[in-house]
């Protein structure tokens, strides 16, 4: 048998005290699509960044087609035919598609080789169905198109090995299908693909073998056949069994939130205007909001959080009409908010965790008295929440921004649930979280409902919405296309509505 396309052996990497990769071995064959599975912090991304030359391994060897190679810089990995599509895209927003392809490429007689690039671009379109207009600015592309451009960049540079880091977390179902088609076309031409994900369903659709990482170690390398159950994989990933969230039907209580024909102006460069939004949410209910990112979900959450005033319509919280609601007024009415941008709008990266956790209520007891902060009470509260929500590697005095995504989200959830809210606005509450952390968040949301609270769950993950929501509303272009009971909300129908087809409702 010929040497495998790629062979990693004994890869080891430490970041200070954290041991991110421990003696990792991994093999990838020509034309193979390999799944790389693991929780957040299991070391998947670190391993791939080592392979891509963004980090230097402390120990271990990398072989490509049997030859040992040294990769110290992305330029080295690119020269060896390794391309990577990062979770956060590495694109220059204010340049065109073509310019992004040309960055770091040699020119022709000292000048940019635009003609050559255009020809190559056309051939990518023919071979893999990857097409983009060359003169479009990246900032005008949708997230799915930006990802396509990242893949095109890798292929443009002649990648034989392509790494994708959680590629579908930002895609609509149909965009994901397009991605899978392109990946299969590449594999058929002998390109090796490493596909990082913790969505088991899509791994089953795409890959034949998975490597599972836990705490930096390879804990499994197995053919992904039907004999392998989701439970087995989850146990490998987390080292424990996880219960799927169970929703119990409840008799709805009094209406806690009602929007009647709400409209709001677009704000900022990428803002979306809200138009004629009406729905109501009762105690004990979870209302899911589905939609492709950037269709007004963020604005809707901000409006109900009191950050954006409504222009038209009526907003009722717990039966009270609010004309120009303020965040403080809403909090007094029992509204809690988990914003989409955890560090931008939820917590303060540079502040100690104790301050981040007291943020919404620092002006009132127990956190302050007579206008003076009570630091001891803040620290005590933070310590209690850290313990109650199992926020790992955190201390009240530690910097908020040093926490990982999952722990940030736990901290945020702890703060918002601490004072017995009646209504929780949760925007993308599990985005980027691993299976265990997701399960934790889900159980808290369901618990709030059992206790008579209501949740507005804004998410791009249709599986999550279907598992938790009683009803699902779909947003498109700042409007609500339709609201379906969860029993009638199948993927195809939701997919059509997400594309703006009201008829599907």
């Amino acid at each position, binding site marked *: 048998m010929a040497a495998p396309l790629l062979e990693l052996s004994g890869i080891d990497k430490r970041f200070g005290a954290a041991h991110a990769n421990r003696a990792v071995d991994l093999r990838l064959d020509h034309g193979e699509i390999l799944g790389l599975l693991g929780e957040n912090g299991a070391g998947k991304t670190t391993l791939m960044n080592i392979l891509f030359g963004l980090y*230097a391994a402390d120990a271990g060897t990398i072989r490509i087609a049997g030859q040992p190679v040294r990769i110290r810089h*992305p330029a080295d990995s690119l020269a060896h035919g390794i391309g990577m599509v990062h979770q956060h895209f*590495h694109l220059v927003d204010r340049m065109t598609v073509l310019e992004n392809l040309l960055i*770091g490429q040699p020119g022709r007689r000292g000048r*940019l080789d635009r003609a050559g690039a255009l020809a190559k671009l056309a051939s990518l379109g023919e071979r893999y169905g990857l097409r983009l207009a060359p003169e479009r600015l990246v900032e005008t592309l949708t997230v799915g198109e930006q990802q396509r451009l990242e893949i095109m960049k890798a292929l443009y540079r002649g990648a034989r090995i392509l790494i994708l880091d959680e590629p579908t977390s930002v895609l609509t179902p149909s965009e994901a299908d397009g991605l899978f088609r392109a990946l299969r076309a590449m594999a058929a031409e002998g390109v090796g693909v490493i596909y990082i994900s913790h969505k088991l369903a899509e791994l089953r659709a795409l890959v034949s073998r998975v490597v599972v990482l836990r705490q930096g170690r390879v804990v499994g390398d197995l053919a992904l056949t039907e004999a392998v159950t989701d439970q087995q994989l989850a146990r490998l990933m987390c080292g424990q069994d996880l219960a799927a969230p169970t929703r119990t039907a409840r008799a709805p209580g009094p209406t806690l939130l009602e929007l009647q024909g709400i409209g709001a102006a677009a704000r900022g460069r990428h803002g979306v205007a809200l138009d004629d939004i009406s729905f109501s949410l009762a105690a004990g209910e979870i209302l899911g909001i589905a939609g492709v990112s950037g269709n007004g979900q963020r604005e809707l959450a901000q409006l109900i959080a009191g950050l954006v005033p409504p222009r038209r319509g009526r907003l009722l919280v717990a039966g009270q009409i609010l004309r120009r609601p303020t965040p403080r007024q809403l909090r007094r009415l029992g509204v809690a908010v988990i914003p989409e941008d955890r560090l931008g709008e939820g917590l303060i990266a540079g502040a100690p965790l104790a301050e981040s956790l007291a943020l919404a209520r620092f002006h009132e007891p127990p956190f302050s008295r007579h206008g003076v902060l009570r630091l001891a009470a803040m620290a005590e509260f933070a310590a209690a929440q850290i313990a109650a929500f199992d926020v790992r590697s955190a201390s009240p005095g530690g910097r908020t921004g040093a926490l990982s995504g999952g722990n940030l989200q736990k901290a945020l959830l702890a703060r918002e649930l601490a004072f017995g809210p009646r209504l929780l606005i949760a925007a993308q509450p599990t985005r980027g979280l691993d299976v265990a952390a997701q399960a934790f968040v889900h159980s808290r949301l369901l618990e709030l409902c059992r206790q008579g609270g209501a949740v507005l769950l804004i998410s791009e993950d249709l599986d999550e919405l279907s598992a938790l929501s009683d009803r699902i509303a779909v947003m498109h272009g700042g409007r609500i296309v339709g609201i379906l009971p969860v029993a009638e909300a199948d993927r195809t129908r939701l997919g059509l509505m997400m594309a703006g087809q009201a008829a599907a409702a």
Partner: protein
Amino acid sequence: MAGRRAISALWDLLLQVGFFAAVLRVATPLLLATLGELLCERAGVLNLGIEGIMLLGAMTGFSVAYFTGELWLGILAALLVGALFGLLLGLLTVSLGLSQHVAGLGITMLCTGLSFYAYRLIFGQPGQPPHIEPFQTLPVPGLAELPWLGPVLFDQVPLVYLALLLVPLLAFLLYRTPWGLNLRAVGENPQAAASAGVAVFAMRYQALALGGALMGLAGAYLSLAQFNAFTFGVISGRGWVCIALVVLARWDPWRAAGAALLFGALDALQLRLQSSGAFGLPYPLFLMLPFLATILAMALLARSARAPAALLAPFRREER
């Protein structure tokens, strides 16, 4: 009818060929330094060392030219010393990732102190500042005889031609070559550039060295072509003006030329107004004119300007 007479005097002034030739002379050092700053900022580094580097360039250029009698040696020395301090700023802001504001102002103070100190060491405290024989105009054969255009554009000192030629050259480098694309990518999104195989640090150092050299050259122009001497006030805020001109130019070399010429025209105008004593107004009012106009232009035009996205942001490898 004093007003009408003053206005017609102003018209006469503006229509003189000499005025336009002066605009170009006054605008040249601004253009050179603005292009230098533009290069640094396009790579993502705000160079607040500009004022100091210009002063040091003026002092070094003058001293070398004074003792060797070779103006071009002075220019060479100014280029080198500018590049050197550009690299020093690189050490602080690129390699060490320090605050670009603090490091830049530090460079300006360091260069200012060094210039004064070195000048005192070399020349002592002369009653009359020493002079050099400045650059002479170099009429372009054939073109200098053109009516109006000739004396304005083609009968200038060589550094003016150089500054004007740098505009298309830099535009070509920035927009048409891989080097320029990589430089802009580094200033917009260094992470993206790095993962495309661009050496981010090396690009930033190159931009700072080149930019610093242009700032040094701009300073040397003032002492070797405009004032023929070095004085402590030779730069007097021109560097800071260039920071504003870069914004006004929206980080584009062609617009930079426009911005430098606009400021140069107002500066030349206020000089004439001062010396003509027109309107019977106190001269500091005229002195304000170009600066006031810059503020106004910024307020009107620069609102839509978008700086390179990674400006002021240090790039660190292996950041988690």
